[in-house]
């Protein structure tokens, strides 16, 4: 029993409640302190969890100590620990960025408690071992994100927010249908138990239907090809800090759930669906990057790149192997960090000019060289140029692809990398390199609070690139763990497996 798995859930909800209580102006310092402390605790805890999983293997606990397949199980393995770690890191940096970039009026409307609830939902989704519980965590994080995306109430936010909410609700509904049908088919929703019963299901075609419904549900959260429309229409409307944390966490939770449910629980189905998953992955990469080329707004370009990068994560899934999942995890962890960094730096540039329109920006490289340097390092990382972490993420994916003979998707992935760099250079040219648009002397200077969060994340990306060996070793183990559903069943229900535990409890 690893009951400490509840700590990363208790800490944000407790801190959110305290931060709500101390919203008043004179107590605000206390609320901010509590928020920062809670997220720092989560970050420290997830680092410890990574170490613990490295030495002891999967960590499992049962809510209320119910016997395994009956209650709600919480499981941490390598994949969930690294996602937990990266998301609390991003949340910490986002809070620091928000402190200096955001109008303090936002705090009157519970901005930081909402961020914490988002972290709560995300952490729960990473740790849970029960499919219906995963649905509930998704709703927790969605409700927090609904609040964050519409906080401020400007017209674009309300328009974009409405589409975001409706399309996400339809995705959640598909998730619920899939949960119901799965329960009707196998009679359990515990992931380990489902994986075990999946082996001897009488009617394989209904399982294919359920797997496709899950793909639709998580795919719409992760913004894969035909389901990504809510993303570019809404992500550029809230403040830059909110966009940054959304890009870091929300779509990646969808990708993680795809890995967990399709890559682990529905593994047999995944092998059958793999060609279609790869097709969707390739199209998502290309359509995302082509969509980005047509845009003329910093954050809209970056939003389309989120879609394109999700294609890579789905490619890792479509390879349907431990190596593919490992490479996908490596890439996802890298892109969460770099994408958030680029949104921070792009948001800082936007704040200087008061607009995100590329035509009305320019000349920033001369005025703010530090910002320009970190932006350039960031796009190098996103495009996958050697010393940065992006290179190793892409190399791992291409290696896994070529080893399995998936040449076409590997070619598309490499080609998309070039297009990504091209599209990012457009922002570089327009915002940083070209001559200044109008008189720049009256524009505000970048403050350390705007520069440092993005810079810190870019440096982390560089460090991950330089120390890539350790990270690759870690994600290889995590990928093996994720792909090994039988080991997962044994960790959750004991050596006999869930079915035996189920029978024993009924007797």
């Amino acid at each position, binding site marked *: 029993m690893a009951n400490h798995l509840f700590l990363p859930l208790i800490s944000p909800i407790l801190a959110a409640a305290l931060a709500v209580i101390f919203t008043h102006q004179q107590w605000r310092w206390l609320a901010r302190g509590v928020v920062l402390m809670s997220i720092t605790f989560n970050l420290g805890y997830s680092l410890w969890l990574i170490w613990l999983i490295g030495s002891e293997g999967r960590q499992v606990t049962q809510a209320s100590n119910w016997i395994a397949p009956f209650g709600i199980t919480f499981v941490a393995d390598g994949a969930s620990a690294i996602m937990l770690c990266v998301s609390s890191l991003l949340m910490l940096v986002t809070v620091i960025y928000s402190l200096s970039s955001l109008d303090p009026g936002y705090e009157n409307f519970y901005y930081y408690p909402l961020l914490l609830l988002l972290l709560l939902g995300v952490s729960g989704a990473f740790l849970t071992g029960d499919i*219906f519980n995963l649905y*509930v965590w998704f*709703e927790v994080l969605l*409700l927090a994100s*609904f609040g964050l995306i*519409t906080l401020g*109430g*400007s*017209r*674009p936010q*309300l*328009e*974009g*927010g*409405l*589409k975001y*909410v*409706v399309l996400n*609700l*339809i995705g959640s*509904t598909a998730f*619920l*249908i899939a*949960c*119901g*049908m799965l*329960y*009707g088919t196998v*009679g359990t929703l515990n992931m380990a138990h489902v994986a075990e019963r999946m082996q001897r299901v009488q009617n394989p075609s209904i399982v294919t239907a359920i797997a496709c419904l899950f793909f639709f549900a998580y795919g719409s959260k992760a913004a894969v090809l035909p389901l990504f429309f809510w993303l*570019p*229409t*809404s992500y*550029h*409307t809230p403040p830059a800090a909110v966009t940054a944390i959304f890009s870091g966490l929300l779509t990646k939770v969808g990708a993680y759930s795809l890995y967990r449910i399709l890559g682990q629980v529905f593994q047999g189905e995944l092998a059958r669906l793999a060609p279609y998953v790869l097709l969707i992955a390739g199209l998502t990469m290309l359509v995302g990057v082509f969509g980005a080329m*047509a*845009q*003329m707004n910093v954050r809209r370009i970056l939003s389309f790149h989120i879609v394109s990068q999700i294609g890579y994560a789905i490619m890792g899934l479509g390879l349907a192997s431990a190596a593919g999942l490992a490479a996908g995890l490596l890439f996802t962890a890298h892109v969460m960090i770099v994408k958030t960094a680029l949104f921070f730096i792009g948001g800082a540039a936007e704040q200087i000019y008061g607009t995100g329109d590329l035509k009305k920006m320019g000349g920033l490289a001369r005025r703010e060289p530090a910002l320009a340097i970190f932006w350039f390092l960031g796009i190098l990382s996103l495009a996958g140029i050697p010393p940065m972490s992006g290179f190793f993420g892409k190399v791992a994916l291409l290696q896994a692809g070529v080893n399995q003979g998936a040449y076409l998707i590997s070619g598309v992935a490499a080609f998309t990398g070039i297009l990504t760099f091209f599209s990012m250079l457009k922002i570089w040219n327009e915002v940083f390199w070209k001559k200044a648009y109008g008189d720049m002397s009256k524009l505000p200077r970048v403050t350390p609070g705007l520069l440092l969060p993005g810079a810190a994340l870019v440096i982390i990306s560089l460090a991950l690139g330089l120390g890539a060996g350790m990270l690759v070793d870690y994600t290889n183990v995590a990928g093996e763990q994720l792909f090994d559903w039988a080991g997962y069943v044994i960790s959750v229900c004991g050596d006999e497996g869930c079915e035996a535990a189920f029978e024993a409890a009924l007797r």
Partner: protein
Amino acid sequence: MILLLAIAIGTLFAGAVYLMLRRSVVKLILGLVLLSHGVNLLIFTMGDGVRRAGLPIVDSSTGIAEPGTTDPLVQALILTAIVISFGLTAFIMALAYRATQAVQSDDLDDMAHTDRL
């Protein structure tokens, strides 16, 4: 019973899709409400209670389930789903109210500004 429920679910889904494809924000929300009802009924049919018409009651002294006892878990799932969809509907109504105020229109086609280049 199953047949009746199947027809009801299908009708709810059809109505939901029809309403969601209209241009009015209010009809969109009504469509989402119908959709969540349809899903709740669908989950209900997934339990064995509909077929067996038994009680989900276990003998409290022995803890043994009699043959024919039905599984109450689907009802618990539905209850959770109802609560969540209730909260989300309340949120989206408030959001739609604010959005129609800001755009001065109930027509979804007037809400395409954030999509333009």
